[in-house]
């Protein structure tokens, strides 16, 4: 076995190239607010700019094929990109682009040439931001129960309905969604996967007031929205993967969302929090306390196990090894250990973790944000209950035939 993510000669050369490039190309004055809700429109524009520059290099979506504007990089090199972006406090893409992150592989698997040519390059080059629209007020865990309809009318689908927990601050250029194209059809055989330009008439976006909007550190979305569709006419050719075939198409991005693709950037806040606890403040460090140290070690172990699961999944996803329950297992673990860690931080450091007060809040308020976000993070991309459902089906608990993991490539 080889767990090494250290660089070969070639890799460290590449890492240096990336470092230098970033030093060159990260626009001046880019801020890294702890809570993306504080990300101004100007700051957002700077992130988009960085995205476009990365896109030119094929580094915005480094695993996508070059012909569509990706980098077609091997695992080790793309890992370096994610890593170096994380080192300067950003995710890849540096702005919330869940739509792109999950649509790109989905279109690659299920789209026709025309779809790939039309949708992928703008995403990969960072020219557009894309949202994913899945949940509805009455369809959360039960995604197949969506009510939003898209009825064929001539050369268009006419969309009506409401989606919730959508996107981010500062809007998007495209959205894709699961919609009912056959209201009388059987469950799972009545939905389609549709790409929607957000500038079409009849679309309205209303922000939601949430505990946190969620999203990973470097690419937090800021706010989530409700999106209303009122007789929105979407060109028929924007339907990807065939009419009423949407449930199959969804398996790909759900697999990505459920952690099947793995990741290498680990949970920095844990290690930063450990440093915070070791700093002396008027002669006293939190880690001076025995009980605090015990919980810090438990927290470290929690984080290490999560890192190892993520690494395993990343390896599985980028080799041709069979995947089964591992994606959902990682996602479940990340959710539950995240909440557990947040509570450990509270026990270890006391009420100070509950404030982002400039004078008192640890890590510029990042810990306070984590206290809230660890709770919000329990539900997006399928609840812990649903992650267990997926694990059980794929392990084959109580059933002979095991459910297959979604296609990633």
């Amino acid at each position: 076995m080889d767990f090494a993510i250290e660089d070969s000669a070639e890799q460290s050369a590449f890492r240096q190239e990336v470092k230098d490039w970033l030093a060159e190309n990260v626009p001046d004055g880019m801020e890294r607010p702890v809570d993306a809700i504080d990300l101004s429109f100007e700051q957002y524009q700077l992130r988009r700019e960085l995205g476009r520059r990365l896109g030119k290099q094929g580094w915005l979506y480094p695993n996508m094929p070059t012909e569509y504007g990706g980098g077609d990089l091997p695992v080790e090199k793309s890992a370096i990109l994610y890593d170096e972006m994380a080192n300067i406090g950003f995710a890849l893409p540096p702005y919330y682009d869940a739509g792109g992150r999950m649509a790109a592989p989905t279109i690659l698997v299920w789209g026709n040439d025309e779809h790939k040519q039309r949708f992928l390059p703008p995403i990969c080059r960072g020219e557009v931001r894309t949202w994913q629209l899945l949940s509805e007020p009455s369809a959360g865990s039960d995604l197949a129960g969506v009510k939003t309809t898209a009825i064929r009318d001539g050369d268009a689908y006419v969309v009506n309905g409401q989606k919730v927990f959508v996107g981010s601050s500062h809007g998007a250029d495209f959205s894709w969604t699961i919609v009912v194209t056959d209201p009388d059809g059987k469950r799972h055989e009545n939905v389609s996967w549709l790409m929607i330009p957000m500038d079409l008439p009849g679309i309205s976006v209303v922000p939601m007031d949430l505990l946190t909007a969620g999203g990973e550190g470097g690419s937090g979305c800021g706010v989530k929205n409700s999106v209303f569709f009122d007789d929105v006419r979407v060109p028929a050719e924007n339907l990807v993967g065939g009419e009423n075939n949407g449930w199959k198409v969804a398996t790909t991005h759900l697999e990505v969302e459920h952690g099947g693709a793995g990741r290498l950037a680990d949970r920095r806040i844990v290690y930063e929090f450990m440093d915070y606890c070791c700093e002396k403040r008027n002669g006293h460090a939190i880690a001076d306390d025995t009980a605090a140290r015990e919980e810090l070690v438990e927290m470290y172990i929690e984080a290490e196990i999560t890192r190892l699961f993520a690494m395993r999944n990343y390896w599985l996803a980028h080799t041709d090894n069979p995947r089964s329950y591992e994606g959902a297992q990682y996602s479940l673990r990340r959710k539950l250990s995240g909440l557990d860690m947040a509570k450990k931080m509270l026990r270890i450091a006391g009420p100070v973790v509950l404030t982002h007060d400039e004078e008192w809040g640890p890590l510029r308020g990042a810990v306070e944000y984590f206290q809230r976000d660890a709770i919000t993070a329990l539900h997006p991309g399928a609840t812990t209950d649903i992650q267990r459902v997926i694990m059980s089906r794929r392990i084959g608990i109580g059933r002979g035939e095991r459910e297959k993991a979604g296609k990633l490539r």
Partner: protein
Amino acid sequence: MDLSLSETQQLIQESARDFVRNDCSKDKLAEFDKQQAPVNADLWRKMAQLGWMGMVIPEEYGGTGNTMTDVAVLFEELGRGPVPGPMLSSAVLGASILLEAGSAEQKKSWLPEVAAGERILALAVTEAQYGWSPGHIQMTARKQGGDYTLTGTKLFVQDAASATDLLVLVRAEDGDGILMLRVDAKSAGVSIRPLDGFLTGVTEVKFEDVRVGGDDLIGEAGGAWPALGRAVQPAIPILCAYKVGGCQAVFEMSVEYSRERTQFGQPIGRFQRVQDHIVHIVNNLDAARWTAYEALWKLDSSRDAASSVHMAKAVASESYMTACDYAHEVHAGIGVVREYGLTLHTKMSRTLYHFLGAPKEHRKALEPLLKLTPA
């Protein structure tokens, strides 16, 4: 053995439940929360009129001298809201401290106003190096003639922003040990700043050369800590009862949601996973409930309640937090929508986790009582 509520307690429960239902609806509480209003004036007046501020205060000082269990029954209902504000700080903690350590003069002049809700007390104990032991009191007072001068910072002070008077624990510079001073919240040099974040009613209080008269010294210099301890002991299970009410509320919320919300063609409560989240909630609820009420019974029947009180706080702090977490599992998305009301409890469960001592500290305190360490 009789674990039922007395008639008095049932009456208190009903009126408190009506009050919370009518005056503290989800939306109103969410509204208060947005405004960051330390205390809502109308609400406070109503509660005073209901006589709740005087329950721990004897009749001679304008109160009704109820049992601790009576008071706990009230706070359990308030916890269901959760109703924010300085009720516990002023009418329970503050009042108990004055009763415990105040001079006849101080009691006569201050307690009736506390009972009437006109005087609002808040307890300033903790500091940057947070904790509930004498060692954690570092801020000092300089004695000049009969007066004292205070300089320093108290941190994570509950309800100071809505208080008229602060009861401040400080070290005497002359080494007289720890003493307690009443400080007018409006005095020159006192600045009170609410702390933003995932907490409610918690403040930073800065003192810069604040002059306090000798007649504002409560109890003897040096005797403040034991006095505080005696006053805090009965307040702890009442705080626990407030958390019990919180657990009860998220339990009922979750059961209701488990019936209304349908997914996959049935109420989500038909799924064993959702059921088990709620089973966790009720197990935490009942653990908090019975440890709290046994402690209260020991206090009311003047038994040795020390170990029960420590246990009750250790249990209730964890239970309220855990109950909220499982309620979020049940509610998923809607649970983090602020208007829904669940996050008020989640936030309160965190805010009060360390208040009057963290579970860790209370478990430590049990060690000598259980003879695991020499007393």
